[in-house]
């Protein structure tokens, strides 16, 4: 503007004022438009957010209904799946956002009176935690192996890992079943632990991360007299701490959610994790279902709130945009 003014100041004051005004008007219009666009975007994002959160919030709020309120409201939904429940059910399915009366009876029953749910919850924990810990341990070693002294053979093996990682359960479960049968570990937790521990997923992600550590660093350590173990322990692992966290979160979500493996590898329903058991809750216990579902949601949500940034980072590595 200042440049413009200097040029025209000799010519005409009135024309300049007019010009100024049109510029200001245009700016105003542009600002208004930007504001409009922003508010539309925010509203759209808000709508999406409501849609995304609705099922979660509803599950939580419904867990505070008393058992009788739930069977009054939703009895019909779950009666169809069971064989002949009692028929004290209302005609309509009333979706309630907020219970008529907040009660903790569901939680009290689940936590204190019927231990089977806690038992199943414990099954989930027992199945998932060793997989997370040992998959990380095995993967840390393997990705160090893939990072140091890269050669043709290792690249081929790594390629194999990627293909295996991308295979759906439909393909990998049949081999897993056969191995479990050979080792006579079918129907034991080992049948799920072992394939989980050696799953190539963590190896792939961690290798991609570790390969970004400058080789010169490891070489410098080597010249200073560090052995392979020290390079691994003192250089690679500390630098990969963040990656280890994000991979742990990704593995945890994946296995906490598992349904396919226990269905096929554990025929004994007593050993099933809560995720499978929840779908089999029969009409008599709908009252408890929401509380159980909420309790089951708690660990991953805590992990999420604690480590959202790690999770986002982990997903980004998976895409390999950074790498």
């Amino acid at each position, binding site marked *: 503007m200042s440049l413009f003014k200097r040029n025209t100041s000799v010519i005409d004051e009135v024309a300049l004022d007019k010009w100024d005004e049109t510029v200001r008007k245009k700016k105003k219009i542009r600002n208004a438009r930007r504001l409009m666009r922003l508010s539309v*975007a*925010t509203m*759209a*994002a808000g709508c*999406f*957010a409501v849609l*995304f959160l609705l*099922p*979660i919030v509803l599950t939580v709020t419904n867990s505070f209904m008393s058992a009788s309120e739930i069977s009054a409201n*939703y009895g019909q*939904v*779950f009666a169809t*799946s069971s064989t002949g429940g009692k028929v004290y059910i209302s*005609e309509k*399915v009333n979706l309630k956002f907020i219970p008529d009366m907040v009660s903790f009876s569901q939680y009290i029953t689940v936590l204190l009176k019927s231990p089977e749910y806690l038992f199943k919850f414990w099954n989930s924990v027992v199945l998932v935690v060793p997989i997370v810990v040992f998959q990380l341990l*095995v993967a840390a070693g*393997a990705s160090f*192996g*893939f990072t*140091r*002294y890269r050669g043709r053979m290792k*690249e*081929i093996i790594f390629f*194999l890992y*990627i293909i295996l990682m*991308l*295979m*759906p359960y439909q*393909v990998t*479960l*049949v*081999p*897993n079943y056969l*191995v479990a049968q050979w080792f006579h570990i079918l129907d034991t937790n080992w049948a799920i632990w072992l*394939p989980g521990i*050696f799953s190539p997923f963590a190896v792939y992600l961690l290798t991609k991360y570790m390969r970004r550590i400058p080789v010169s660093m490891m070489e410098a350590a080597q010249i200073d007299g560090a052995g392979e173990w020290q390079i*691994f322990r003192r250089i690679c692992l500390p630098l990969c701490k963040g990656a280890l966290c994000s991979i742990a979160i990704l593995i945890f*979500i994946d296995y906490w959610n598992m*349904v*396919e493996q226990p*269905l*096929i590898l554990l025929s004994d329903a007593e050993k099933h994790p809560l995720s*499978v058991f*929840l*779908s089999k809750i029969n009409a008599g216990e709908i009252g408890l*279902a929401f509380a159980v*579902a*909420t309790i*089951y*949601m708690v660990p*991953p949500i805590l*992990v*999420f709130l604690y480590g*959202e940034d790690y999770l*986002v980072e982990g997903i*980004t590595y*998976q*895409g390999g945009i*950074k*790498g």
Partner: protein
Amino acid sequence: MHFPGRKKIKSDSEQTKKQKGIRKKSDTSPRTRRGRRISAGYLFPSALGVMLFFVLPFFIVIYYSMVDNPISHQFVFLDNFVMVFQNAAFRQAAANTLTFSAAAVPLAVVLSLLLAMLLESKIPFKSQFRTFFLSPMMVPIASVVLIWQVLFHYNGMMNEIRVLFGADKVDWLNSSYAQAVIVMLFLWKNLGYNMILFMSALSSIPKDILEVAVLESATPFQIFWHIKLRYMSSTILFVTIMSLINSFKVFREIYLLKGDYPYDTMYMLQHFMNNTFGRLDYQKMSAAAILMAIVMVIIIGILFLTESYFGKDVEG
């Protein structure tokens, strides 16, 4: 996605050929050889596990798919595959899986790109929105399936909304609408993950190029179409493949909603596998698994080829 491309391996081998003399010297240095052996040792446990639990049994599966039964071991070559192909349940499952993927994958890609663009624009509460969009990914599907059943029941909320708009009630989970419900559940679960991938791709577009485009008075649409999409081509490809793979896993949702035998259009390949497991029909199971594996290898191969084709001129 960075894969160890074929080219790299080839150039490696060429290098070894060229520098054989020099290489050999360094290879024979006891220190390097020792390091190589040790690093292979670090790899060993994982490689052994993968061999034992995934690779070797897969060869047994190939063997099983070609014999008539596990006891007499008569070699029948492709008969099992023909049998699987002729199986009505398998064909139904394959067709359902295909139509589901064909509907869900493009929707997942487009909608998540839209969400990422929304979050890239300067709206307030950006990080909160990111948390909200990601939260379905964390929640175990078993927990929300209850509320999903309530929403889509014949007398449930979705039908009441339909009635409000003057449409008829539909039995969501027991009609041809069932697939729509599953697509919604799939999108709900997977959009956040894809969105993160797109967001990081969007933020890695060089800023100077965008600035130049603005200076040259390009419209936002032009910027989006000619620059952003162009730079994200490899991410779009990756997201497509991941969504496709995840769409094969949708059995979990359906099983939790409807059990082993859902409505016809929800009967997926994994149902077929599970129910075949139940009967311990090894040949059929193996043949089906191998068919799936072949399809997956073809898809992954296409990913490789397309990525090496597209990724070149952008990333350089």
